[in-house]
């Protein structure tokens, strides 16, 4: 980046606050206050973060090297055997594949839908507040509630089947949750229903941040609404879209509650995810060493994705943010 001198916040502050001439006046009280402020603000979150995030991660990594049922001492050290078991297991591969399918579908389908609805709801349409509320409502529901509700809706002969039959689409009726080839996509539809509201609200917030003058100027210059959207709105919405993709992919990898309540990852692992795999093979089977291994693997996947995404996709956004803050 061009403004490398402003990488240090201290340097930036000095540029602004230093008097035009003469030595810097001593300001011990202000320094003390600053330190006190930092201590008060940083110590509690640091303690919580270390205690509830870093330390458990270290423990998980440690347990993952043992064959451990959770009872008795940790004395059966097996090195990387758990990792070999996880990474070479066909059932785990299947779970990862499902997570990737969900993540890819989220970006390919949820993003255009969210974007379309957000653009629509950003206009002055009748009942806009109600519509915004309606699309956001599923996100407010807990995953458990949504899962139980959809489990009932998707029962054979249940409300969805009845609806299809009533509108003459009886031929489309399937075993939505019992078919091994359909179940993953049924779960995806439910997840989309649940999370689309979040995407829309995020994008709406992004749209509100775009100065209307830009669009108005473009319109005066003769741009069509489609040209305005393509050349002005979408590029300026870029940071929001990139953040949404990031949250969506990470969320897809952490999918658990919906799947567990609706299908337990079944039938025959057809809707398993990394976390249902971990719960089945780690917790239910009381193989806590093995379960810890799955956690570590998921953590590494997520970390690698997060860092790579940060480096290649979000760099421009975050760098811009820092630059603005400093100047």
């Amino acid at each position, binding site marked *: 980046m061009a403004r490398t001198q402003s990488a240090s916040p201290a340097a930036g502050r000095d540029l602004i606050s230093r008097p035009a001439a003469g030595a810097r006046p001593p300001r011990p009280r202000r320094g003390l206050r600053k330190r006190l402020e930092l201590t008060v603000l940083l110590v509690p979150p640091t303690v919580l973060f270390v205690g509830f995030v870093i330390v458990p991660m270290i423990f998980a990594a440690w347990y993952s090297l043992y064959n451990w*049922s*959770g*009872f*008795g001492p940790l004395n059966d050290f097996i090195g990387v055997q758990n990792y070999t*078991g*996880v990474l070479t*297991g066909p*059932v*785990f591969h299947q779970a990862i594949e499902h997570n990737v399918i969900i993540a890819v579908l989220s970006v390919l389908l949820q993003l255009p839908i969210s974007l379309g609805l957000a653009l629509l709801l950003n206009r002055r349409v009748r009942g806009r507040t109600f519509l915004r509320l309606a699309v956001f409502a599923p996100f407010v529901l807990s995953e458990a509630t949504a899962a*139980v509700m959809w*489990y*009932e809706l*998707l*029962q*054979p002969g*249940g409300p969805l089947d009845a609806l299809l039959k009533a509108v003459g689409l009886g031929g489309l009726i399937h*075993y*939505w*949750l*019992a*078919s*091994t080839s359909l*179940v993953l996509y049924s779960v995806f539809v439910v997840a989309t229903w649940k999370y689309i509201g979040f995407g829309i609200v995020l994008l709406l917030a992004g749209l509100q941040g775009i100065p209307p003058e830009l669009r108005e100027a473009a319109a005066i210059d003769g741009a069509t609404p489609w040209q305005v959207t393509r050349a002005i709105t979408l590029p300026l919405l870029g940071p929001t879209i990139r953040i949404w993709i990031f949250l969506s992919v990470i969320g897809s990898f952490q999918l658990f509650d919906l799947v567990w309540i609706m*299908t*337990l990852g*079944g*039938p*025959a*692992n*057809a809707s398993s995810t990394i976390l249902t795999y971990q719960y*089945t*093979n780690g*917790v*239910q*089977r*009381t*193989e*806590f060493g*093995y379960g810890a291994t799955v956690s570590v693997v998921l953590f590494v996947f997520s970390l690698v994705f997060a860092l790579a995404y940060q480096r290649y996709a979000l760099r421009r956004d975050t760098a811009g943010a820092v630059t603005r803050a400093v100047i």
Partner: protein
Amino acid sequence: MRGSRKPAIVAVAVAAALAIAACSSSSSSSSSSGTSASSSSSSSAKVTLTWWNNGNTQPLLGVWDSVAAAFHASHPNVTVSVVPIQSDLFTTKMPIALKSDSPPDIFQQWGGGQEATQFTSGKLANLSSLSSAWISELGQAAAGWQVNGEQYGIPYDQHVVGFWYRTDLFKKAGISSPPTTIAQLESDDVKLKAVGITPIALGGGSRWPDAFYWEYFAVRECSESVLQSSIKAINMNAACFSQATKDLTAFMATNPFQGGFNATQAQTGAGSSAGLLANGKAAMELQGDWETSVVPALTANKNILSDLGWFPFPQVPGGAGAATAVLSGGDGFSCTTGAPEPACAEFLQYIDSTPVQEELVQKGEVGLPANSTAQSVLTNPALQAAAKAHSTAAYDAEYFDIAFPTNQGQALDTALADFFAGKGSNSTIINSVSSSSGH
């Protein structure tokens, strides 16, 4: 696993339970009178027993509170602190608790291989000598709570798995008496289908109900000694287990279950397998005796229990197992090594005393009490039939997922559920319990 069944039962009954709760808050009068035999607590020091149980919803919540209060009334030096915990949480809470210096004094115990897994923590108290004077009252029910021949847990109820059926639907299909052989069951299925009734409801979405079928075929095909030695050796290579898979395959080929059974849950909502039976959408379900506490909450039919009958799993011609052997289990408690004794053992004895057992039966919380004397208060004819089949059984075979250590038991359940969903084979079932191939 066994632990996941009871909470679901209780959970689906919440609506009904809320109504009952109002009536069950002051029910300790009868239980306090049954303690004379057990009030021999010699210690005069005041002690507190922390009791982790899975009675986290009414009516069991209220029942256990009144049991604890009544025990305190007859043993003033012993205070029982009741800690209700949802069943599934025991899986994660117990390893941590048994590693700590302050585990609960008493905790929910399902016996079998799971108890043996917990036993390795060294924190389970040996109750053999403390219970020797009265444990015989429980008969063979207590055997499932032993590790290496010593009593490390004590049951308070028993379970037996069998077919629950709708007497009205059987009549409609022209079936005069329940089937006693698999061939008869299959021909009854045909009769039921002919009048548009799904023969059997199966909660395959919950996984464990699938296992009952294969396990019962194995119980019928394997002799008692082969069954016992195979469970002990965690090895199912005996030919009779493969024969069970063949039996199951042939049975499944007759399509006895409702469509989409792989996604049907066992006990949640009217669309669950128990709900299908409760609402007359299916004629039978292979389930435990807890069925009577599950179905009333799933239907508007107030007389549903009088429409239900019970028959044992049919005989399999040529099998080496006893025709009357039953697949069974139960619920119980263990004491930990730091628990004040004899108070802890006395409390477990108190729970198994006839008045408390009768109260549990009358409240509908226990189908088959561990103390068989209390069976006299059973009034439901179907439950009486189940109790009779259990008491006259040649022997009990504990559900395999509990009998095996937890890891292998769960692996077997998963392999069987996969088999029902059309994935896997006999070898995936047989090999699921060998330690290296489970994942």
